[in-house]
């Protein structure tokens, strides 16, 4: 199988869906000739023209609102939000409008749109360009949330998102745009709500999202060398969440760490940990641990920024403690 970058994978997914369905179009800042600052959309305007790859002014609430209205009336907009941090600007249109329209209309109106944006720190981009804010939207009923962890997922999840009749927010890891992974030439879709067991193991389960999947795979390597067998699971979408797959693994290994790059408090890790606690409690040999980004705004200086995100060493260290029983009474 060929290897392509995450950026190319997203580009292909959009191109294929736009060829398949004329109602799909992209709108956002510098998406056309510039192909976005990350160059993810390069070449699309050449194929689809400026009627379908639409450059907007720097008006996030405005073009988000326009996308909601367009989606309600027969098109399938893909909103390009340059940085995940700008989600704060579109919150009203996304959460008060898009998320609730289907419900409030008693199922009569649909909002089939996709917001594609990103997450991830350690790019030295400081506090307003480094946040991982997926928990904010996952909290709002009516929004689906996908977190691709490689080029393969990025393509398959994007295609599913575009065909979904609900508003979907996809967060890509901006540090992964140039990372290559095997991606089939032939068409495929990845269904929402189906977790992927990246690596099987028997001693401990590492549930990891997006950027943290790589981190947990590296942690699993470290642990394997010490004779600890770690299972790594990527939920791929957090709404809907493949609870069964996570519970199954938890019951099997009896120890779980949930690792996600959003702030640890009130985040994805807490949600998943408590579901495991509620539904697999009697199978557990240790408290479920959460590892998220430190609860501080992301600092600019590399000397501090690197301290704020979970690392493979830190995950391995916690795993060791859980496996040795050290943390059973510590949590």
């Amino acid at each position, binding site marked *: 199988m060929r290897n392509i970058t995450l950026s190319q994978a997203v580009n292909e997914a959009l191109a294929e869906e736009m060829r398949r369905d004329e109602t799909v179009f992209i709108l956002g800042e*510098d998406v056309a000739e510039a192909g976005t600052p990350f160059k993810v959309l390069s070449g699309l305007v050449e194929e689809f023209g400026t009627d379908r790859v639409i450059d907007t002014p*720097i*008006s996030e609430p405005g073009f988000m609102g326009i996308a909601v209205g367009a989606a309600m009336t027969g098109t399938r907009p893909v909103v390009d939000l340059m940085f995940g941090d700008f989600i704060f600007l579109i919150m009203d249109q996304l959460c008060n409008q898009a998320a609730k329209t289907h419900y409030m209309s008693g199922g009569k109106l649909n909002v089939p749109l996709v917001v594609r944006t990103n997450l991830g720190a350690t790019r030295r*981009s*400081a506090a*307003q360009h480094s946040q991982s804010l997926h928990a904010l939207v996952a909290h709002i009923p009516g929004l689906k949330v996908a977190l691709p962890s490689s080029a393969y997922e990025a393509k398959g999840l994007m295609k599913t998102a575009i065909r979904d009749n609900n508003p979907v927010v996809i967060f890509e890891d901006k540090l992964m745009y140039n990372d290559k992974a095997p991606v089939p030439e032939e068409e495929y879709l990845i269904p929402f709500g189906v977790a992927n067991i990246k690596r099987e193991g028997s001693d401990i389960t590492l549930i990891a999202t997006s950027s943290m999947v790589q981190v947990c795979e590296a942690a699993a390597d470290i642990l394997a060398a010490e004779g600890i067998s770690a299972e790594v699971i990527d939920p791929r979408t957090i709404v809907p969440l493949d609870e069964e797959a996570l519970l199954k693994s938890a019951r099997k290994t009896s120890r779980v760490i949930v690792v996600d790059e959003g702030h640890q408090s009130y985040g994805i890790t807490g949600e998943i940990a408590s579901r495991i606690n509620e539904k697999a409690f009697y199978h557990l040999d240790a408290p479920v641990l959460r590892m998220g980004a*430190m609860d501080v705004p992301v*600092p600019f200086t*590399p000397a501090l920024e690197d301290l704020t995100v979970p690392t493979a060493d830190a995950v391995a260290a916690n795993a060791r403690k859980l496996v040795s029983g050290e943390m059973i009474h510590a949590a």
Partner: protein
Amino acid sequence: MSPAKKKTNTEDYLRMYRQMVRIRSFEDNANQLYLSAKMPGLTHMYSGEEAVAVGICEALTDNDRITSTHRGHGHCVAKGAEFKEMFCELLGKEEGYCRGKGGSMHIADQSHGNLGANAIVGGSMGIATGAALTSKYLGRDDVAVCFFGDGATAQGLMYEAMNMAALWKLPVIYACENNGYSEYTKTEEIAAGSIIARAQAFGIEAHQVDGQDVLAVNALAQRLVDRARKGEGPFFIELMTYRYHGHHVGDINREYYRSKEEERDWKENRDPIIRFRSWLVEEGLASEAEIEAINAEVKKDAAEAVEYALNAKYPDPSEVDMHVFTDVKHALA
């Protein structure tokens, strides 16, 4: 409250010149730091727009506040900041203005009234207007200047803030730096109609000025600042200017959105520093030798500050959870 300084003597003109050269020199060094991979992250150069920041900030005192943008080094220098603390901030060092926590896009200098750069386009519209509200509320006569780009005029917040500023007659000056582009897009493709008409719709007095002419900018700013102090604000200025570098330091191949000829024309025929320098010499306010001496001095200052910053310490890891809250030393302790 100290009244705004009068710009009628040679000393003031030479200070304006020096400040513009300082900005250019700061940016040349910052660009080099980026290109030699000594600076973390990326940054946006102010080169070419010096007359805007200097013309306006020279009409202000330390008590007057400004809000700045992602392209903020120029505002910071013009408002009185020191090279050493600025370079330390760009390199993420402890002695930086923000102890390395903010970096280029969030540089702030509380001591000179710079409330900070902002990485959210248009994000400081409310902040500057709020600073003006404080001034009025507390019965002070200081003013606030909100710097922002042409691209930021697309943000709805601007209209909400301007409406309130006009209703409440706040001492705020909206300074729109129209450099013809927002990122890789021409202004006419993202802004329908006239920019100053946007302010005029709220009954705000609005002016357009050549942003490459520091004397014109300063004369206008001086007048509007004086009037804003007397409660005649708000005001709006559109400053026609140009950025010499790419949108950010990594934006090297940019011919697909703007031509080399256009760049050359602005640099060769409208450069604010060259223009002002010729004027100073023609008017007999400075000799070529004096000008060269200023240039050399600034260059040396900048080189020393860079050297200092490169060797300065990073903040201690224990700082990571400091400053999350004002009254808590370590938020996660």
